[in-house]
């Protein structure tokens, strides 16, 4: 390898430039024109490959909490340490003051409660210190009442959300409530009775191997013992029945996509109420909707009648789909589809480009709690080009449609709906 006049190996050039870009990209004030320049720099395949190769090394070198906490710089600098200690003492004193003023004193003035709120907003340290004191004082219920009367609920958006969440959780754990012992005994007896009833009701499910059921806005990804990845859509139900001789997954409702690990000794079977779809090592999806649709993205899948592996079969290759409806009277035939696009939901994205607003809304609505309602028939029939949206984000799609001229979007919080109209 020949080196340039600076002693650098020329083949290192893209890596050195990539390292420089990585440092530059950390600047919070980096001008957007430099970000555009970085993007153009990556258009060269050599540069892009160097950047991607360097990224894991960069991430490996990032400071972790353990590394930073053991940083000697702060610990060795007495001035920094002193200042920190002073500040902590001050925060403790302030927290104690507010606690006794607003929690212990039944006649707290409204103005004091407002000042208290302002003090809380200043820093998460203040919230943390107050929680510690409240827990020691055993007065979490009182704290809750005081904060509510200071209109805390309206103001909590301005607090660091995590601190608010911790505060709320601590408030909900009432450490001071005293429950009469007779109620406690009744509670225990009731819980035992419910437990016994549940045991009888759910006994069949205990004997089944791994049932996974999802509701609205719920998706589930899992890897099975053999390495097969299963992606379960919202509103779906799947049952795993693996044995030494067979790998069977029952799709009882909804949709699932399978990335099947190769195991020639044990074929993989996705079983539905109508068909069995058998594969050795492939990627395919099964969907139940007034029938069964099997879509193959990679490899080969053999579809037969349920529990009839050796019966008449339809073989599907990549890019093919077979739909068997519940009332099928004739033998179904495979059709060509964009299988990667159809199964894209398993990766968390939906490609709704080229679809009418109504069809796109349907795709999102059948998966999510938040529903999109299209008020205008002309808007419903319109095709809006959008980039792929996250499968759990109907809001993103609605915003994209609302960006079209003349379209209005209203979020109906009360009913969990997004209304689109012209």
């Amino acid at each position, binding site marked *: 390898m020949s080196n340039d006049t600076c002693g650098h190996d020329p083949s*290192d050039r893209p*890596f*050195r430039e990539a*390292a*420089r870009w*990585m*440092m530059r*990209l*950390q600047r*919070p004030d980096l001008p*957007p024109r430099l*970000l*555009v320049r970085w*993007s153009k720099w*990556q258009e060269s395949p050599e540069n892009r490959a160097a*950047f991607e*190769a*360097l*990224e*894991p*090394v*960069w*991430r*490996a*070198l*990032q*400071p*972790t*909490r353990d*590394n*930073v906490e*053991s940083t*000697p*710089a702060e610990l060795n600098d007495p001035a920094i340490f002193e200042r920190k200690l002073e500040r902590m003492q001050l925060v403790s004193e302030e927290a104690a003051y507010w606690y006794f003023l607003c929690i212990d004193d039944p006649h707290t003035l409204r103005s004091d409660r407002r000042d208290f709120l302002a003090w809380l907003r200043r820093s*998460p*340290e203040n*919230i*943390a*210190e107050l929680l510690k004191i409240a827990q020691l004082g055993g007065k979490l219920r009182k704290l809750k009442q005081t904060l509510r009367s200071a209109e805390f609920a309206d103001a909590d958006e301005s607090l*660091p*959300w*995590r*601190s608010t969440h*911790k505060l709320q959780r601590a408030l909900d754990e009432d450490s001071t409530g005293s429950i009469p012992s007779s109620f406690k005994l009744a509670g225990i007896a009731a819980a035992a009775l419910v437990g016994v009833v549940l045991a009888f009701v759910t006994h069949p499910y205990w004997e089944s191997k791994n049932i996974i059921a999802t509701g609205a806005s719920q998706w589930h990804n899992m890897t099975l013992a053999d390495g097969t990845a299963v992606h379960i859509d919202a509103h779906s139900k799947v049952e795993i029945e693996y044995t030494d001789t067979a790998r069977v997954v029952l799709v009882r409702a909804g949709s699932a996509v399978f990335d099947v690990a190769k195991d020639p000794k044990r074929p993989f079977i996705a079983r539905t109420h109508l068909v069995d779809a058998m594969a050795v090592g492939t990627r395919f999806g099964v969907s139940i909707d007034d029938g069964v649709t099997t879509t193959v993205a990679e490899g080969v899948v053999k579809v037969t009648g349920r529990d009839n592996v050796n019966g008449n079969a339809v073989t599907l290759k990549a890019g093919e789909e077979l739909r068997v409806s519940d009332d099928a009277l004739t033998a179904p035939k495979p059709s060509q589809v964009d299988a990667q696009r159809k199964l894209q939901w398993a990766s*968390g994205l939906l490609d709704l*480009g080229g679809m009418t607003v109504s069809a796109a809304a349907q795709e999102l609505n059948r998966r999510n709690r938040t529903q999109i309602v299209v008020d205008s028939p002309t808007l419903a029939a*319109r095709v*809006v*080009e*959008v*980039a792929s*949206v996250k499968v759990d*984000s109907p*809001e*993103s799609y609605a*915003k*994209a449609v609302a*960006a*079209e*001229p003349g379209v209005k979007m209203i979020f109906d919080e009360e009913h969990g709906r997004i209304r689109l109209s012209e």
Partner: protein
Amino acid sequence: MTDHSARIKALFDEQRARLKQYFRLRLSSCSDEAQELAQETYSRLIGPHKEVSDWNRRLWFIARNLANDTLAQLQIRRKANSLLQVDDEDPRTPESTWSEQQAAAAALRAIDDLPERQRRVLTRFREGCSFEQMARELGVHERTCRRDFERGIVEIQRMIGLERT
């Protein structure tokens, strides 16, 4: 379908991978979080639009500000968690955590084989030290620290690459 929405879609499709890369680097975040932020960038880009002369620059302007805001929120959250002695939520999967741990272990082994100044700079970087602080400690210019870091990281990548072959 309007020209505007088609144009924005084309731009976003072209830049999506780089946006995700940018967010991963700025926020040390996992792929899912980076994807969410990329999606949010798109949502803000297609919002009520005025005539913009350079949509590419507008896209990166939004992305940079979103990264800054998210980083600020993350830092507050981490600080609150450390005060409450609670572990930060880790959105990564066990597989990605394991592979990152392997990469980190390989990088640490490689650091030991670097020349002294590069080794010190990279070690201090891992401890969260800024280049300015490093320069003061080492008695050199900040530019020298950055150059040593650049050479060190490239050398580590080369050593890890050789280790794999």
